């Protein structure tokens, strides 16, 4: 026999204490009697006035020592090495996303989930094991498999809800290898069911028990926010937002727009049941600042009632066009608002003065080190040219990419194009049957758009989509846009900032106060700040520079707090919500406690009888 907790034998020190209690005489009541003669005869063998008496054989003492020995033995947790049928493995996935902050459960869905999970811990048998995963934007393993209930409780208590959206996929990916090939394994998901697609688990047959949290969906929230230059009036800014109503009843919503904390405008909307409605504000902006949209009024989920965006005044975009002559291109670029176009025949320096360089079918003397739109120009280390193709037919284009917004390739014919393989750093935007025609991606820390055909050898410049594409390209390649995008962070995603030089000190002040100082390697080229679990405006001090970035939820799935009745895995597999589930709620502790109470009662009764 072995012991899991041999340290418990330290309790054996209690044995002499029990004996000591027997050696110690009790406190006595003084009583005057006529003569102690009869008592002496009565207790002829009880003598001596010392505090200790001779230890006599006493059944009560024997029983108590026996009881103590058994208790110590039990505390030492003896076990027999042997083959056991093996316990269950329970993988608890605790959804810590923003929607779990809903206050329709008491006090919140997350706290209820934690309570339920703790109850599940209580129902564990000794051989059962449990894993605790906290799923938000990232999945954290809070507790690896263990039977230690104290550790499990501690892990559950350490879980904290975030403002981030749910990514259950990651959690299931973690859980799946744990439960695979185990006969008695279950995944217990404590969630409200708002999640992204879980299609890839359709055929896995995951043993998921879905504990649904949430009772209603009384929530309105901002699901998108963007600030850009006004299309008609470049001096003004347009604030685009979308407000969603998750309730099945119509609800009014008052949207307030603030700039640096000052109220600019208020608008009242009447949202229909489960309706998402766009709101557009047009405001003048004379300095860099933070736009904040706020939904006034009470609902279950406050975290999505406010969204902020750091807006900087757009500087002009300096474009260097390196071409042997392309009127279409020059005109289209010149038509782009904010673009200041310079034209050159060759590029003889790294062109650091420009925001972007357009290479129109030329191979420059010196390759520029800024963002690049390359037309039929390529460096060999970018991609591998495999040949050329005559009259490739455009079969598909990726309309969701920002570069191809409002851009179509109907009626575009290309005379001749280079054939390439899509490199790992780029995505193919426009594809012919034989080859991708337009690639976009980030290579060596700069953005590159590559066209595999000469625009002049195509009908594209004659189409309306060509200037739009160029406008999109300038927008996409503009480093200011990249910077602005970097200042817009989804809750839970890391904030990244490329560094040209390492500042002496980096301090971050999150929205809820306490400033943090980040340590950077002297050779760091990028600042990464991952602790963005709270929404709001974070302020960054890089040496003497000040920078603000906004962390927002802006997630329609989180705003829609309707508790889902089931979790779908693809089209056919699903896990229905379980409200009640039979569990072995052990109550031996209560019995043991009752046993102790009986023992105490026995002791008391013994004394009462003696008295």
């Amino acid at each position, binding site marked *: 026999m072995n012991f899991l907790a041999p340290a418990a034998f330290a309790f054996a020190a209690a044995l002499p204490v029990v004996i000591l209690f027997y050696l110690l005489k009790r406190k006595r009541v*003084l*009583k005057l*009697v*006529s003569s*102690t003669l009869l008592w*002496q005869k009565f207790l002829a063998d*009880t003598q001596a006035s010392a505090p200790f008496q001779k230890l006599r054989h006493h059944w009560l003492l024997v029983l108590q020592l026996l009881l103590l020995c058994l208790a110590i033995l039990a505390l030492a947790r003896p076990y027999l090495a042997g083959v056991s049928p093996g316990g269950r493995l329970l993988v608890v996935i605790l959804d810590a996303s923003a929607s779990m902050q809903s206050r329709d459960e008491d006090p919140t869905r997350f706290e209820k989930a934690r309570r339920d999970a703790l109850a599940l811990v209580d129902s564990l048998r000794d051989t059962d094991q449990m894993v605790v995963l906290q799923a938000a934007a990232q999945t954290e393993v809070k507790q690896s498999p263990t039977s230690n209930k104290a550790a499990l409780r501690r892990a559950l208590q350490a879980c904290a809800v975030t403002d981030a959206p749910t990514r259950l996929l990651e959690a299931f990916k973690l859980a799946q290898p744990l439960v695979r090939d185990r006969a008695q394994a279950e995944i217990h998901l404590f969630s409200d069911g708002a999640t992204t697609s879980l299609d890839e688990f359709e055929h896995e047959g995951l043993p998921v028990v879905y504990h649904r949290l949430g009772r209603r969906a009384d929530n309105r929230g901002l699901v998108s926010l963007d600030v850009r230059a006004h299309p008609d009036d470049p001096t003004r800014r347009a604030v685009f937002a979308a407000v969603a109503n998750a309730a099945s009843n119509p609800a009014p919503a008052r949207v307030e727009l603030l700039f640096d904390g000052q109220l600019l405008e208020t608008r009242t909307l009447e949202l229909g049941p489960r309706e998402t409605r766009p709101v557009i504000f047009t405001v003048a902006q004379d300095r860099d600042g933070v736009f904040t949209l706020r939904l006034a009024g009470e609902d279950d989920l406050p975290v999505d009632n406010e969204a902020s965006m750091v807006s900087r005044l757009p500087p002009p975009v300096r474009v260097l066009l390196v071409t042997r002559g392309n009127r279409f291109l020059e005109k289209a670029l010149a038509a782009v608002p904010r673009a200041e176009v310079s034209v050159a025949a060759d590029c003889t320096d790294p062109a650091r003065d420009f925001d972007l360089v357009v290479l129109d079918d030329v191979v420059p003397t010196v390759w520029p080190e800024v963002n690049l739109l390359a037309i039929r120009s390529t460096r060999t280390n970018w991609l591998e040219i495999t040949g050329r193709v005559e009259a490739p037919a455009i079969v598909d284009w990726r309309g969701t990419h920002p570069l191809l917004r409002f851009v179509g390739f109907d009626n575009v014919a290309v005379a001749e194009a280079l054939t390439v393989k899509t490199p790992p750093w780029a995505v193919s935007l426009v594809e012919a049957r034989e080859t991708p025609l337009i690639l976009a991606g980030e290579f060596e820390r700069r953005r590159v758009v590559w066209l595999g055909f000469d625009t002049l050898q195509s009908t594209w410049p004659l189409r309306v989509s060509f200037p739009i594409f160029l406008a999109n390209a300038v927008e996409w390649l503009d480093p200011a846009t990249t910077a602005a995008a970097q200042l817009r962070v989804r809750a839970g995603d890391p904030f990244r900032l490329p560094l040209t030089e390492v500042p002496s000190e980096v301090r971050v002040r999150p929205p809820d106060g306490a400033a943090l100082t980040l340590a950077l390697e002297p050779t760091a080229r990028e600042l990464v700040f991952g602790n963005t679990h709270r929404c709001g405006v974070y302020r960054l001090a890089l040496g003497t520079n000040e920078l603000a970035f906004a962390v927002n939820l802006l997630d329609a799935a989180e705003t829609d707090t309707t508790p889902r009745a089931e979790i779908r895995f693809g089209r056919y597999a699903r896990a229905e919500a379980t409200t009640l589930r039979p569990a072995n709620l052990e109550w031996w502790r209560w019995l043991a406690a009752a046993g102790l109470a009986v023992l105490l009662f026995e002791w008391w009764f013994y004394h009462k009888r*003696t*008295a």
Partner: protein
Amino acid sequence: MTLGMSGSLLSPELLRRLEQLQLLAQRRAKSHLRGERRSRARGLSVEFADHRTYVPGDDLRYLDWNLYGRLDRLFLKLYEEERELPVRIFLDASESMTFGEPVKFDFARRVAAAVGYVALCGFDRVSVLPFPEHANELAARRGLRAVRGRRSALAFFQHLEQLTAGGPADFNAALRRGALEARQPGVAVVVSDFLDPAGYEVGLGALVGRGFQVHAVQVLAPEELAPTTYGDLRLVDSETGAHQDVTFGRYRLAAYQQTVRNFVARLREFCAARRVRFYQAGSGDSLDDLLLKQLRAGALWS
């Protein structure tokens, strides 16, 4: 005898019944004083005892002239001389006698009063010897020595009532001194609880050895027979101040009572072996039962 003369010790009804009793002397009285007891001494009385030959110097009044006329020899008629029976009552007045409900000493005093009254009625000499000595009760104690005659009963009772109990006592020493002091042995009645740490054997033995006809009356309080105080106790002896730790509960009552019975039985055996009459009574018991049944059955009186 007036009814009121008994004081609070004995009821008039009891007194009337006691008057009919007579102390029984197991042996011939050895007192030198004349009394109403038959004695071995030949002397003046109406009871003829024996003849003996005349020796010069005998009182000529007791010559049997009828016999001289028939036998022509001088014989002296001997009569039994009736003498008094000295009754000594040893009354335990130690601290331990102040306990009990009713108080043991009161009960013992009433026993002493009853025995004394019977003796007084029989014209016997009664001495009550309370022990230990109390300096402030000398008058009352002196009044209890060598009381004779029924007329002295009132004073006898009053003196008895003036006695108080208290202080430690040496049972054996008191009895031994009482035995030595007595000029003639007679009836000795010892009224005590016999709860002396030094034992009772020496004292009783001294009385027996002196030739007393000893009657031992043990008075115990109900509390001593069946204690009602339970728990972890530290008992303090009222006389010696000795401590005794004891844990006592209802379930040990039977064992305690057995101890008491053993103690009483040993005392009874001791007495039986020395022809000492032994009586045992609780201070709450009926006095009539002790006086009219036990003592009569024990042949103290009839």
